[in-house]
């Protein structure tokens, strides 16, 4: 049986892993390569890195870091933040990343998804989306896509966008709830399930994980295929192993040997 994946998310700024709430009040947590190795040896199933300032600073992603991570870990990892075009995708993938994640770029230039899927295979194109709860009548699902690190509202319905992105060629969707991000109060189960039921590709839940029960809920009630964790492991509240033990007890299939 396919295992549910636990994916630590490393937000990187100036070569340091950092964590804030809704992209604010960030504190630095450590070196991205060292943390990647520690999580990999601790039993995580995959990793994701976001270069959170590349976009705002108008520079390309930190490729040296991607190369170092590629040399250091033997599990898959995705990289996002600051991807501007096909060349950036190529550079990140050839530096050793398994997947490349696009978010704002895909909303503003959806053809990057089809171009990337054609060039590199859809399995390496991940759509990151940051939906927020809304009453906007243009968004019948009740969730609106934001871009530029939650700063920009788009009037685009989250579910419509998810379906369209799959048609264009994404191989996986990371659903990062703006409302839940950094709160450690649990994933946005309604949103995650809406997306999971709407698309044929795997869905990764993100934002809000604080306890192992939150992961159990998102797998069992919201049909997520994988779950991103950040604060709860970065701050040392739980280890990956502890989370997996709780998931195993609850009957969620997880990888137990590494």
């Amino acid at each position, binding site marked *: 049986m396919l295992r549910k994946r636990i994916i630590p998310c490393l937000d990187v700024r100036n070569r340091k892993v950092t964590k804030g709430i809704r992209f604010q009040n960030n504190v630095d947590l450590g070196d991205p390569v060292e943390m990647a190795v520690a999580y990999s040896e601790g039993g995580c199933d995959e990793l994701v890195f976001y270069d959170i300032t590349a976009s705002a600073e108008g520079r390309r992603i930190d490729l040296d870091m991607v190369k170092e991570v590629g040399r250091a870990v*033997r599990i898959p990892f995705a990289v996002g933040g600051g991807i501007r075009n096909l060349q950036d995708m190529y550079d990140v*993938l050839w530096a050793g990343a398994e997947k490349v994640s696009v978010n704002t770029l895909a909303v503003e230039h959806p053809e990057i998804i089809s171009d990337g899927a054609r060039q590199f295979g859809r399995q390496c194109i991940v759509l990151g989306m940051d939906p927020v709860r809304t009453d906007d009548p243009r968004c019948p699902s009740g969730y609106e896509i934001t871009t530029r690190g939650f700063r920009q509202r788009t009037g685009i319905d989250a579910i419509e966008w998810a379906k369209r992105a799959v048609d264009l060629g994404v191989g996986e969707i990371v659903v990062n709830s703006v409302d839940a991000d950094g709160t450690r109060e649990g994933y946005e189960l309604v949103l995650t399930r809406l997306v999971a039921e709407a698309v*044929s590709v795997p869905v990764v839940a993100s934002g809000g994980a604080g306890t192992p029960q939150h992961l159990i809920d998102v797998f069992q009630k919201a049909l997520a295929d994988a779950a991103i964790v950040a604060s709860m492991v970065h701050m040392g509240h739980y280890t990956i192993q502890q989370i997996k033990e709780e998931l195993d007890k609850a009957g969620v299939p997880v990888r137990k040997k590494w």
Partner: protein
Amino acid sequence: MIVIVDYKAGNLTSVRLALEHLKVEAKVTQNQADILAADRVIFPGVGAAGAAMKSLNELNLVDTIRTVVARGTPFLGICLGTQVIFEYSEEDGGTPCIGLIPGKVRKFQPKDPACKIPQIGWNEVKFTRGHPLFAGIEDESEFYFVHSYYPVPTEADYVLATTEYADVRFASIVGRDNLVATQFHPERSGRIGLRLLRNFCDWDGTC
């Protein structure tokens, strides 16, 4: 020298880095003479079968692959590299492939919509018999998969391990003589994947 065949079917970096990790010297190449002279050959690949076969034909590598396998050189297929050594793939409206293993490659058709395609993630690999490649690896270990199509060999003899997904138990490792091929990615499968690659680097091609 180990040769990693580069036929423009996706990213070879992780295979190269995994061998680097094992301190095994490897050469990434699309050169026929290099491939024919290799001590062992790794044939990876991600993406679609149609584009992969087109590229192999353009590079004149189809016969090279057949020849190097026929002369007994230890040969490891990975993911798409595994699929294109079958006779035929359903992908891209039907693609004739290299034909080193009798059988074809089919698309997952899950009945349950909650079962997602591609299969992405770690799944269990159950050995159907012993093989030098499995030395030190426990049966039912987990490996990392990323695929929408799966191999269906006509001969049960060629199935070395199976995995279950989308209502089918498919051949996740196939092999005969000096050829082995995995549907999963050993180069992305942590310590256990590295062990399988190590075993391949030590294998004399007999079983």
